[in-house]
């Protein structure tokens, strides 16, 4: 069944994604770390789908669609910011800071 190993791998991958978001300043790399977190959650869904039915795999499908939409819009925003400020480093993008 491999439920516990899958949940362990998923937990480590999710943690690495969170660590990446906290550790990096490059907006695109932070985006990739978010994708990593989504994948860790997908792994959990698939692992539990073995015991709880195919619905878990369907949710992975929906998560993938949302991730694709998020990547398209997010990268368009990053492109727009880059055209405006010529950087993707979050240290230099602080318009909302008082």
């Amino acid at each position, binding site marked *: 069944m*491999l*439920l*516990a*190993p*899958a*949940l*362990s791998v998923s*937990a*480590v*991958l*999710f*943690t*690495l*994604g969170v*660590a*990446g978001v*906290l*550790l*990096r*300043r*490059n907006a*695109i*790399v932070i985006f*990739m*770390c978010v*994708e990593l977190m989504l*994948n860790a959650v*997908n*792994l959990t869904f*698939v*692992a*539990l*789908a*073995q*015991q*709880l039915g*195919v*619905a878990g*795999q*369907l949710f*992975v*499908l*929906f998560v*993938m*669609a*949302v*991730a*694709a*939409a*998020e*990547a*398209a819009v997010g*990268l*368009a925003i*990053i*492109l*727009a*910011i*880059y055209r405006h400020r010529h950087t*993707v480093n979050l240290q230099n993008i602080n318009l909302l800071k008082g």
Partner: protein
Amino acid sequence: MTWLAAHGTEAIFWWFGSLAMVSAALCITRRNPVFSGLWLIVTLFSIAALFVILDAQFIAVLQVLVYAGAIMVLFLFVIMLLNLGRQVTTDLKGPTGAGIAVGLAGLLLFQLLILRHAAPSEVITLPAGSVARLAQEQGLVASIARPLFDTYLLPFEVTSILLLAALVGAVVLAMRKL
């Protein structure tokens, strides 16, 4: 023989699992965003292999096609379009930021690893191997498509509207001068 088969599967699972974890760690620590992206692709492929072991072959194919094929190409394309490949300075945070990040991540890992022992209640659990059997009876795609176009039809339609909105939004954001 069954013992050997079971443990062989577990060994393969751990091999791909460790590959995923190691390449994810390399992904978040490489200075060059292109290398980060390439290591993330390795992670995504390993996760696809894990999906195959977990009886989700169709999802594994989608993982390779959608994630490694489409989304990561988009990422690498943007990285190369913005010419971020040659980073002279690292964008990793300093000792204080890194310490806070590792501390918070360690706390989260501790909490998540407790959940590893979670087991679904016997009442709602299906008998072992029933998902694999369903895929064998109905076919890999049909076993997923049937509930998708039946029970989950409304979420499916909403997803298509979401994708349309994202498409239009991305074009508008990329075309207009902000």
